[in-house]
């Protein structure tokens, strides 16, 4: 993965910067005037988000694009963040030296993984306008900010500093800036609107960075603001060691020659993930390498043999050496609720469903798929749905058609879920937007332009599964909407129209108004449930009311169940009707017999949520007569959810046990209990929980 950038850097030593740029501009993202601006914004904003994340700061980002000369396409770009800032002595390196990244060799999920970063922007500005980039940086421990103009000496290929100074950084409101970075540069570029624009890039960025507050001032002076919707910073990502399944010959060679270990066993054990001491021995045995061999003295054919053992191509006792999966805590998914919030803030709609799949592994690389679907008013019904693609929280804006994520969407027959799709193929049409996010330690692109993801069976499969699940949710939603409209009609019928017919007919005939109870029971002939979920501004709680009407001529007995966001940390309060927990996120109330014409009202509040977190409560029932407005409880599904919960809980225990034993592993050197346990768990035939079974998204015939 580092290959391209390394190659670029080496080449760069020989050729002039301008030539280098000219040759590589297509994958540097500077191949058109429109794209150059987007790329510049992207480099700066990605850096701000990364820096804030690392420093655990909630990012406030400001981007301003100004047209300086319309005829010559000269644009000024200014970005500002509230990150940690860059110490004065490092500014020159960050902005004037290629590949001065802090993340470069680490294997973990991060936005910038290769490329030439912000230095490219400095170069591009210099080459197209001859202008230096103005940098203002303030770090918390100093009272004033460092300012400097950074340029590039195109003959010496070196950064140049001018106008170095210090100044007091005052904010518009008169207060002093605590810390942060501001970059101002001028470049030849074009600002445009539409699907590929700075606006769209920032909008997409704000969706997958719900913790960021982003302000954009466009060339017309219009201010676009995407507010922060959560105070929660993304999980801190851990670096991981490479996994044998994802390693290349060159890397293996380099690792061996740079190794400080004395023996191959400890080299394998310590430098790779997924390799226990037992597996290390077995790998060496399969590759016919002496355990005590020194890593530094490996021969070429031994590298190859070891690689074959890694891939399971060299067997030991007729079996491939069993390796553990790499840990997945190096991934930082956005998580369902936050995707929901992110989507809701940029698109106004009624229905949002999101899903974060459990992490899995492809070719030794952990990855995780997240999807979101938003449906409803405010979007065109006769156009293809908007596809929002992201890799490691970075928006992908070009080459939609050739991207794996798009292909996964296209592989689903959306017609069965209520969207239009000619021939059941292609991007579906309808008032919807679909979001797909791939988080991975190693994102594979189709080309160096890094705009489309390359084909990969496992990833495709994961995305597809997530789509199907969401599709089912969408269908349920549409069915429910239809049912609710019907129920609404029935209520209007018996509450308004029938009484009006009775009154008018009585008045025309000059007779008394007749009693309506009989007619109404006949007309409704049903038990009806209504649920209301509203945000209470005063108490900062979500109030839920569930009403059950018995419009039949017989007494009825039910157990009502309601879904609630227990997993998201909600607490149920003021639940005067008691009841009990059926499963995580499912509460049940056994009701007294409901006489004909009787109504029962149940209410409770949810605390620990923010406004908009929970806007609709799904109601289920147990009982013989159908309840309109509620779903009959699928006991098998409930069973499944409970089972998954217990398996997941057990796994957590196992993981904890593993960690605890990690310490004394090395001393021991012998086969350890940890690995045996873990491997047994892996062999266990019990189906692994997917962690994605949900009450609403489940099954077509529920």
């Amino acid at each position: 993965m580092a290959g391209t950038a390394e190659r670029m850097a080496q080449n760069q030593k020989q050729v002039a910067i301008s030539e280098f740029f000219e040759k590589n501009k297509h994958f540097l993202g500077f191949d058109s005037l429109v794209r150059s601006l987007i790329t510049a914004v992207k480099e700066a904003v990605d850096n701000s988000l990364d820096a804030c994340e690392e420093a655990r700061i909630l990012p406030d980002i400001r981007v301003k694009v100004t047209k300086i000369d319309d005829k010559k396409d000269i644009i000024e770009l200014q970005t500002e963040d509230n990150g940690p800032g860059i110490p004065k002595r490092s500014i020159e390196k960050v902005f004037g030296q290629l590949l001065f990244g802090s993340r470069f060799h680490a294997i973990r999920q991060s936005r910038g993984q290769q490329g030439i970063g912000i230095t490219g922007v400095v170069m591009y500005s210099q080459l197209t306008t001859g202008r230096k980039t103005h940098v203002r940086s303030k770090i918390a421990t100093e009272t004033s900010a460092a300012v400097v103009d950074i340029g590039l000496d195109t003959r010496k290929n070196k950064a140049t500093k001018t106008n170095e100074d210090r100044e007091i950084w005052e904010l518009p409101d008169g207060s002093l800036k605590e810390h942060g970075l501001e970059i101002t540069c001028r470049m030849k570029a074009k600002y445009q609107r539409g699907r590929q624009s700075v606006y769209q890039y920032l909008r997409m960025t704000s969706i997958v960075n719900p913790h960021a507050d982003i302000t954009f001032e466009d060339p017309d002076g219009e201010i676009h603001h995407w507010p922060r919707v959560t105070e929660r910073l993304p999980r801190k990502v851990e670096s991981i060691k490479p996994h044998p399944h994802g390693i290349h010959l060159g890397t293996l060679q380099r690792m061996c020659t740079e190794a400080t270990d004395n023996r191959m066993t400890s080299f394998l054990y310590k430098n790779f993930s997924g390799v226990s001491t037992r597996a290390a021995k077995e790998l060496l045995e399969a590759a016919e390498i002496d355990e005590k061999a020194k890593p530094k003295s490996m021969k070429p054919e031994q590298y190859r043999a070891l690689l074959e053992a890694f891939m399971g191509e060299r067997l030991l006792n007729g079996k491939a050496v069993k390796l553990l999966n790499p840990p997945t805590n190096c991934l930082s998914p956005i998580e369902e609720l936050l995707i929901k919030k992110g989507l809701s803030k940029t698109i106004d709609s009624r229905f949002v469903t999101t899903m974060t799949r459990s992490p899995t592994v492809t070719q030794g690389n952990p990855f995780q798929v997240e999807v979101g679907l938003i449906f409803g008013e405010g979007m065109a019904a006769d156009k293809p749905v908007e596809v929002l693609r992201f890799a490691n929280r970075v928006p992908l804006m070009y080459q939609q058609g050739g991207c794996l994520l798009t292909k996964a969407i296209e592989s689903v027959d959306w017609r069965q879920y209520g969207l239009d799709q000619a021939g059941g193929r292609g991007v579906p049409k309808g008032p919807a937007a679909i979001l797909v996010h791939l988080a991975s330690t190693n994102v594979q692109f189709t080309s160096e332009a890094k705009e489309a993801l390359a084909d990969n069976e496992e990833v495709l499969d994961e995305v597809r599964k997530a789509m199907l699940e969401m599709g089912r949710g969408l269908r349920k939603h549409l069915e429910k909407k239809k049912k609710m409209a019907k129920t609404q009609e029935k209520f209007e019928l018996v509450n308004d129209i029938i009484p009006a017919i009775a009154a008018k007919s009585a008045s025309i005939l000059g007779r008394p108004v007749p009693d309506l109870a009989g007619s109404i029971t006949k007309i409704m002939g049903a038990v009806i449930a209504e649920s209301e979920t509203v945000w209470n501004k005063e108490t900062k709680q979500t109030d839920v009311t569930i009403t059950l009407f018995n419009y039949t001529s017989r007494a009825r007995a039910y157990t009502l169940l309601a879904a609630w966001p227990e997993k998201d940390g909600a607490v149920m309060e003021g639940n005067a009707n008691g009841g009990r927990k059926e499963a995580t996120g499912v509460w049940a109330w056994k009701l007294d017999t409901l006489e004909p014409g009787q109504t029962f009202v149940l209410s409770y509040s949810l605390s620990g949520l923010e406004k908009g977190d929970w806007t609709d409560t799904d109601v289920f029932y147990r009982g013989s007569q159908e309840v309109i407005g509620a779903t009959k409880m699928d006991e098998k599904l409930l069973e499944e959810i409970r089972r998954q919960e217990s398996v997941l809980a057990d796994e957590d225990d196992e993981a904890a046990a593993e960690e605890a034993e990690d310490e004394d592993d090395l001393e021991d050197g012998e086969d350890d209990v940890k690995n045996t346990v873990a491997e047994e768990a892996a062999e266990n035939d019990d189906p692994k929980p997917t962690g994605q079974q949900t009450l609403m998204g489940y099954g077509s015939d529920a």
Partner: protein
Amino acid sequence: MMSASHTPEETKAALHNVVTEMYDKIVKGEPPTMTLPVRTKNNIGFDTKLGVYKYGKKRSIRDATSLGSAKQLLRALHVVEFIEEMIDARKSSTLREMYYISEGWGLGKFSSQNESNNLAEDLEVVTKCMREDFKLRPEEDGARIIGNLTLRELNRRGEWMRINARDDVGDSGYGVPYNVEEEKIELVEHDLNFIMAIETGGMFDRLIENGFDEAYKCGLVHLKGQPARSTRRILKRMSEEWDLPVVVFLDGDPWSFRIFASIAYGAIKTAHISEYLATPTATYLGITADDIEAYDLPNDDLSARDVEALKAELSDPRFADAWWQEQINMMLELGKKAEQQSLAKYGLDFVTDTYLPEKLAELGLA
């Protein structure tokens, strides 16, 4: 001559029956209902006594178990009340006015003009009254007539006016009012051999300009597309009271066939009053399907809707006879339709000098 009208008391009693059906159902603890004949081609049959098509025995029950039909019932009640008020106040209103008045009916308000027209018809059908009994007037204006015939009309000042439709009228002819019953119009005398009903204004004016009415001693009636009730009624009266043949000259397309059927056999929507409106002796003169070929007329391809309409006509009892079946099938085969004004291909006089004389000769009228 039979009379269509009911006394105010008869009308009110008939309307009260409709209301009573709803009221009694509620008292019995049932959803209120309104029972009415099915008003589609599947429920019209030939009445041998009257010689026209009438509704058959099929009944549909509109009950208040869905929001849509419940609203219909409520609207019907509002209309009944409104009609009673008009009868008592000796007023009348147009259907359009009623539609606007319904704005004040809250839940019983109409959502389209079409809906109010349909409901008025429903009530006619159920009560066997005419909308004149309900004091409801149509918006549609009636036909124009030119020819040597004389009638008397009661004007607004309550005076009988004698009008000759050749000598006392301008180029636009005599305008037929919405009420053409005996209390309003009296047919006095004529010097005619037949009546010709014409679909388009252009053709009507052509025949007048060419002096066709004088030359062939005929009364020309401009139908203005689908003829209004009063137009059909006055055609029937002229045919019966003066014993005159009626020939119908229309475009050659599926919709013209329907216009003819409504004149000769009765319209599906008004089959409850066919005996007042239909002229069973009327003859279809043209444009026929074979005219298109025989006269090599400029034509248009049938649209999908045209074909659908023709196919529906094949199973319409009013077109069950051999001649119509042949015409419809021929048009389907040709896949063509032609307008009456396409005869102008052969010059402005062709229609009066050649086409019509030839067609009338077939009928023995020229």
